[in-house]
């Protein structure tokens, strides 16, 4: 392995050009992808912590039989808020947040496509989450479950505003998610460094490309479902009202057509984290790159074939259930292929048990259990027995925490040195890992057994004679251990930001392009973007074959390349910082919240939204004139 090429020296003019402006207005005007991404990550982690506290309250109430710490009404809000927070405000958006930081760096780009839209998506996401928590604090938070089935969530059984706030949150988070998907696809297809052909893209970038396409097909379904729920509740439509020709199972089809792909929107990006971490700590490229890429794509396609397996207990015809059983079982194939490639990589390499690798390795153990119980649930006959029991709760948490949260924590330990310039503490990291790993398994493994013994999900209390008491006590103890582990992570972050060892550009001697930038990266990422010659540019003699010259330092100029072969095509001038994405998001928020209370809010909200959106688009005369003078026509 050759030593890493030296990081390009900083360029003060370029830094100034790509920096966000100072001050409060500047803070609201920021559009640099790294700035927005850090905010997005912190916000999603804040919601994760809030969701975790809600989970602890749930566990406290379930600790012992016949407990009365929390009543049924508040308990219903707790599990609704916990599920909604984790699935809509943490798990999907955190992956997009990490991606908008890392993808430009990994592909050798100076920025992201549509940076103002990226800022707008962040503000929309933040305001949606704040709206939901404000409703919860004001005792009008949702209580019909995180997937809000009608008729329970319909106007007859959930009068008042609780479910309206839930449904409107869906509009916020899906709007944000869809915009992020457009940004990521455009960035990946059009802004890769010269020479980074599609078959040289890092596997993490492939996972974000694939999940972004999945977002664009899946999220419209839940957006439509929740819009129809809103209109049923607020203006008297009848989509879900059987008495007027509607159908309650329609909701389940629309919701799970989104909801099962959502599990993969959460699960596939961590496959990219795994590939990055394992390659680096095994000191070799991932075995079987083409198989890995095909497996990611196959997983995405299969994810859209699975939705009815959440509905095996409904009146869907048997033949339909047989198809979905087969599709559900097939999902194991691409996952197994990836497991094989990672193990083959590790087998031939020399193991290096730093904290990121511990989190990555835990994936194999935890996801294996989640995957095995998933294959069990793919069977209609077994699923009917355990539907809506704690067995399903255990399976879901093994898949999502083992498949996503553990790799995410590993990714954070891996890339924190790049984000901050400091190393995370290794000793605290190991304590964090082991407390999380032990706590997680102690918390969730007993739930399989409780579920097989018939314990339903979502009950706020249970009688002693059911014999579930000891299992629940063990689970609560495990949850507390898990919480302490996560708290240690927070301590590690706070200590390391200030006092961690200096990281340097490439503390792991890793091979991908983000490690060719300074730590933290300069505002413009690459003073001279690289010309790429291999899949792991920093590990090959010809991996960085040269650099790009001729991009301006005094305006936000990026190189646009072709989709397949990343051949330079043109330069594009990216927009400057602007407060209008923030103002537009405020106006959209007025429209969304207002429409919970009166349909007329759609009308005057739209009137309120139009000026900031037009001003956002409107060119400034001075800068435009300068750009015209420097134009090169096609």
């Amino acid at each position, binding site marked *: 392995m050759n030593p890493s090429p030296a990081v390009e020296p900083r360029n003060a003019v370029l830094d100034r050009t790509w920096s966000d402006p100072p001050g409060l207005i500047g803070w609201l005007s920021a559009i640099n992808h790294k700035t927005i991404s850090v905010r997005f990550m912190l916000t999603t982690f804040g919601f994760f912590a809030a969701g975790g506290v809600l989970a602890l309250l749930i566990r406290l109430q379930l600790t012992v039989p016949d407990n009365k710490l929390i009543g049924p009404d508040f308990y219903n809000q707790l599990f609704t808020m916990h599920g909604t927070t984790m699935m809509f405000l943490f798990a999907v958006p955190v992956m997009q947040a990490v991606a908008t930081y890392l993808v430009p760096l990994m592909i050798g780009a100076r920025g992201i*496509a549509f940076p103002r*839209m990226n800022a707008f998506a962040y503000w929309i996401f933040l305001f949606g989450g704040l709206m939901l928590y404000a409703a919860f604090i004001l005792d009008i938070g949702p209580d019909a479950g995180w997937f809000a089935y009608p008729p329970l969530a319909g106007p007859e059984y959930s009068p008042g505003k609780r479910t309206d706030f839930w449904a409107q949150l869906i509009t916020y988070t899906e709007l944000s998610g869809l915009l992020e*998907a*457009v940004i990521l696809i*455009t960035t990946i*297809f*059009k*802004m890769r460094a*010269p020479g980074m052909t599609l078959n040289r893209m890092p596997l993490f970038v492939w996972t974000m490309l694939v999940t972004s396409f999945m977002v*664009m*097909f899946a*999220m*419209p*379904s839940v*957006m*439509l479902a929740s*819009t*129809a729920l809103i*209109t049923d509740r607020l*203006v*008297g*439509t*009848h*989509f879900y*009202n059987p008495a*007027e*020709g*509607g*159908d309650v199972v*329609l909701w389940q*089809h*629309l919701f799970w*057509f989104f909801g099962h792909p959502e599990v993969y929107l959460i699960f596939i990006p961590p496959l990219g984290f795994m590939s990055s971490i394992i390659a680096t700590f095994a000191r070799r490229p991932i075995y079987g790159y083409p198989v890995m890429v095909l497996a990611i794509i196959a997983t995405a396609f299969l994810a859209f074939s699975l939705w009815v397996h959440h509905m095996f207990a409904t009146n869907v015809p048997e033949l339909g259930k047989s198809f979905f059983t087969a599709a559900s079982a097939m999902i194991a194939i691409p996952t197994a292929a990836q497991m094989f490639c990672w193990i083959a990589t590790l087998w031939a390499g020399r193991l290096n048990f730093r904290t990121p690798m511990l989190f990555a390795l835990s994936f194999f153990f935890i996801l294996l259990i989640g995957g095995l119980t998933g294959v069990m649930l793919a069977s209609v006959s077994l699923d009917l027995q355990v539907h809506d029991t704690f067995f399903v709760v255990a399976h879901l948490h093994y898949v999502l925490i083992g498949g996503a949260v553990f790799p995410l924590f590993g990714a954070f330990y891996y890339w924190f040195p790049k984000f901050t310039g400091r190393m995370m503490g290794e000793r605290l990291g190991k304590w964090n890992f082991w407390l999380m790993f032990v706590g997680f398994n102690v918390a969730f493994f007993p739930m399989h057994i409780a579920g097989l013994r018939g314990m339903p999900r979502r009950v706020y209390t249970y009688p002693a004679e059911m014999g579930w008491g000891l299992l629940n006590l063990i689970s609560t103890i495990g949850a507390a251990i898990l919480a302490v582990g996560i708290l240690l992570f927070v301590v590690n972050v706070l200590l390391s930001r200030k006092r961690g060892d200096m990281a340097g550009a490439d503390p792991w001697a890793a091979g991908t392009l983000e490690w060719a930038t300074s730590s933290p990266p300069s505002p413009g990422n690459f003073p001279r973007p690289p*010309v790429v010659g291999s899949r792991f540019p920093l590990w090959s003699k010809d991996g960085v*074959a*040269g*650099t*790009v*010259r*001729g991009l301006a330092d005094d305006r936000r100029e990026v*190189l*646009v390349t*072709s989709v397949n072969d990343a051949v*330079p*095509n*043109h*330069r*594009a*001038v990216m927009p400057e910082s602007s407060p209008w994405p923030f103002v537009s998001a405020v106006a959209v928020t007025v429209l969304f919240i207002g429409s919970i209370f009166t349909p007329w809010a759609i009308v005057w909200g739209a009137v309120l939204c139009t000026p900031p959106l*037009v001003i956002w*688009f409107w*060119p400034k*005369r001075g800068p435009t004139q300068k*750009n*015209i003078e*420097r*134009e*090169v*026509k*096609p």
Partner: protein
Amino acid sequence: MNKVDTNVTTHDIDVARLPTYVYGSHSMMWWGTMGLMLIEGTVFAITVVVYFYLRSHSQTWPVNRAPELFWGGLNTLIMLASLVPNQLAKRAAEREDKQRARWWLVACLLFALTFLVVRVFEFGALNTRWDSNAYGSVVWMLLALHTTHLVTDTIDTTVLAVLMFTGPLEGKRFVDVSENAMYWYFVVGSWLPIYAVIYWGARL
């Protein structure tokens, strides 16, 4: 590679003379517009599926009288006719012919305002309300979703037209006009199946 110097010593690439904007699929704006079309097309497709799903669960469909054909047919003809000024605006933009781009954009805007007026009559001719029954709900949803795109495209066209008449004019504004025209093909193209479902699906 076109317009790129390669320094054979180090494989450096000098991109200073590459264009600063391009048309079509090489531009990022094209990909952004395609992304939005894919999302909106998916919403339309799922809503059509909902229509047929609800129909399959219903003994009587439509529950009310089928929509009158006149206004929907008229709007379909107007939209198809609008493709002519749309294409002429696109061509003028890609030739960077400012005068023609301006006036064809104005023509497109007049067509857009005409559709919106006729659309009001279409809603009135549906012969059902959104709160009458599930049939009424899904038909209004389809028409309202498409109308949302008509309204946003009309605003976009207005903004572009005003920009074309006020300076200074960057090359990328011509790209915006070209992409706006591509988006209009989507708005009209998506209307045809929606029209078939709303007006003729009720008559199957």
